[in-house]
């Protein structure tokens, strides 16, 4: 029952958050300077042309009227039509979402692998130069922003040692048999390892750029948790039983030490998705973030609204999942 109560309460909060985001994004993007009609005015346009175009895109109505039209459309699954692409917003954002999700998940996996390996190595070799080197690396990884990592990776593995692709999501000349936009997942399911390798080759550098700062956070937190756990009595008992140090770390200390890190990873995943905006642009990756930048530059109001709402939905959904997992794992919440 407490779990159900938590779920109900979080769903209400999520709904209120989404409504708040919808209201804020709608009005804020109309208040900031720059309107789409001014952007598309050709030389020689008259006042009549301006009025005609303004009416064509429904911008001649009052803001509350525009909001009501938009929100009632959203409630019926119609997010409007993009001004620049002249395509339905919902179809556009849903077609790009899989690319961003796959990139984010790959970045998360890389971050967990690198961060976990660094934390375990640092714990195993605590007090040595290796641990110091890991700490310094973590500091560097955190102090350099992801877009700069992106540039360095492009230079390193795109130009100097051209191993990976540096733009796009898949080689244009390949014939894709996919029926969904989850290219990486579908390539695996169809056992098309040639396509899978090509897609990974495109995604690896942007995913790595996104993963490096997160890997450092995971490494630091997990190492700290492990360090604290290693001093607990049951760990000492394991040692006295004659278990190897590797066994003690992996089998005894890690299961307890990993819980705070898992919570953090859930929260950081939402930030990681936000970080795709710049990285996707840098690597010309056809995801939601790249589309978002174009939408902002072109003042494509319906598209901006659609993307922001979708991002908000992802953020709240991930946070909800994290909260529910926490509630399920926490005995005090589970049993009231």
């Amino acid at each position: 029952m407490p779990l159900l109560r938590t779920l109900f309460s979080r769903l209400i909060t999520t709904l209120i958050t989404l409504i708040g985001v919808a209201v804020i994004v709608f009005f804020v993007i109309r208040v900031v300077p720059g309107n789409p009609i001014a952007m598309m005015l050709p030389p020689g346009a008259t006042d009549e042309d301006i009025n005609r175009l303004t009416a064509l895109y429904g911008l001649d109505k009052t803001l509350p009227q525009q909001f009501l039209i938009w929100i009632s459309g959203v409630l019926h699954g119609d997010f409007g039509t993009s001004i620049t692409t002249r395509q339905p917003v919902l179809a556009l954002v849903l077609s790009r979402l899989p690319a961003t999700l796959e990139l984010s998940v790959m970045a998360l996996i890389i971050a967990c692998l690198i961060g976990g390996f660094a934390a375990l190595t640092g714990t195993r070799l605590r007090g040595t130069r290796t641990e110091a080197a890991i700490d310094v690396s973590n500091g560097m990884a955190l102090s350099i922003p992801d877009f700069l990592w992106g540039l360095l990776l492009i230079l390193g593995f795109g130009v100097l040692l051209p191993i990976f692709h540096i733009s796009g999501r898949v080689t244009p000349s390949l014939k894709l048999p996919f029926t969904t936009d989850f290219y990486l997942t579908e390539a695996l399911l169809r056992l098309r390892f040639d396509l899978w390798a090509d897609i990974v080759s495109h995604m690896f550098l942007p995913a790595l750029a996104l993963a490096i700062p997160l890997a450092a956070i995971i490494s630091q937190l997990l190492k700290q948790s492990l360090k604290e756990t290693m001093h607990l009595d049951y760990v000492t008992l394991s040692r006295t039983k004659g278990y190897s140090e590797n066994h003690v770390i992996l089998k005894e200390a890690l299961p307890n030490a990993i819980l705070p890190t898992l919570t953090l990873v859930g929260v950081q995943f939402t930030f990681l998705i936000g970080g795709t905006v710049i990285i996707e642009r840098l690597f010309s990756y056809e995801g939601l973030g790249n589309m978002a930048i174009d939408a902002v530059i072109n003042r494509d109001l319906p598209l901006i609204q659609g993307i922001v709402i979708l991002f908000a939905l992802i953020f709240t959904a991930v946070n909800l999942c994290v909260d529910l997992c926490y509630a399920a794992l926490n005995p005090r919440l589970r049993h009231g």
Partner: protein
Amino acid sequence: MKLNRRALLQLSAATAALGFAGLPARAQAIEELVIAYNVNLPSWDPTVGPSAVNPTIQGIYQSVFDQYILQQPDLKPAPGLLTEWGWNDDKTQVWMTVRDGVTWHDGSPFTAEDVAWSLARVANPETGSPIQFVWGTLANHRVEGNKVIADVAQFDPTIFKWMYFLTGYVLPKAYYEKVGAEGFEAAPIGTGPYMVEKFERNAFVRLKANANYWGGKPDFDTVTIKFVTDAAARVAEVESGNSHVTLEVPYEEYDRLKATLTGTATPVSDIGMIFLNDIEVMLDPNVRKAAAHAIDKQTIIDRLLSGYGVPIDTLQTPQYEAYDASIKVPYDPDLAVKLLADSGYSVDNPVKFKIQTTKGFKPKDYEMIQAIVGLWRKVGIEAEIEVYEIAKHYELRAADQLAPAAFYNWGNSVGDPTTSTGFAMFGPSPHSVWDGKDLIDMIGPLWGEKDEAKRIDGWKAVDKYIAENALVIPLLQYVQPILSAPGVVVTPHASGALLPHLMKRA
């Protein structure tokens, strides 16, 4: 798993195999031309919506669609889908002769009906053409054999120039009516040198050569245009061999890479200028003239743009029809000091105003304005810089609310004075912020002038008046840097459009 030397080697080999999978062949003979393009293509219809008036994507449109009239690399018109065109004697009608033997990408014949329908479609206000105000000057389009005739509802001396300018494209009547706007967006066809094979929004478009192209089959059978909007990423694309051609890279990178790649840097129809709004201190002619004479354009070009730019003194570049080399606004700081002194200003008592600029929208835009403000300070002008987004510039300019000075770039790929000086300086235009009645009176009669020589002379007189009174400060004509791999010969187009069908094998 125990990590020994053998396991490490196996892991390295696996990683390398994964990395190399699918990498494009480079260096050898180019089978598929790959271009790293600087902008995305939002929409395929080149006649409606914001994309239709975006000059930077016209090169992609012109690869797939033909314009009514062909524009050559030097901006001059040439027979295209229309082989001949003109007005009747009293200029109440226009006539156009349509080329025979042309086919659409689906194999159906191109006819005069397509031309008449395309013209009528964009003249209809309900279509959403942003250039309807031009196309609407023709009415009652009809076909007579292989000729299209239309009545002139309002005489526009530039109507045929618009036929190789923004939205001046011929679309397939039967196909468009059959598939509708959405179907056309999904599978566009034209009569152009390339056919769309695959399009991934925000990623790439893959084009196949049109073997039946009336202008001859292009040299490269397959062209992939990747949308790489970040300049550093474009540099990496050509440097790594992932792309064969790119454009709009920083001039420093261009200089560095042209030693190993082929570099082409030619002036294009895009200029940098400072709008002066007739408000506050800009109502004082001495202040305006001093601001104009205090700018050392050549030094700014040399120092900031590595010499890539052409100083200009009017809104016409040397390639434009109304260019008048005799109009000069020389760098003369002493004259600037004197002019300011006549109005009571000096270095100790400077005239103050705000100047707006973008930052990073055009090469070194902000840095140029910083340099100009530095030059102004030396003669007694204290300008405060405000950085804004280009979207805000458009909005402020349309509302006539720009600061007293505002940096902007102006493109005019047809080279006609109406689409440069005319729209930028004619008060009632939403693009102009100078509302002086004297200038409006000078420009007004030129819109409908039927004598072409008189019209061009009239615009030259307008430019002279503008320069003498410093109603705007033209700065430079931009130079477009293009980098290409050995094996590709690029023909630059003065409009700035990068056209794959003009690229040849070396």
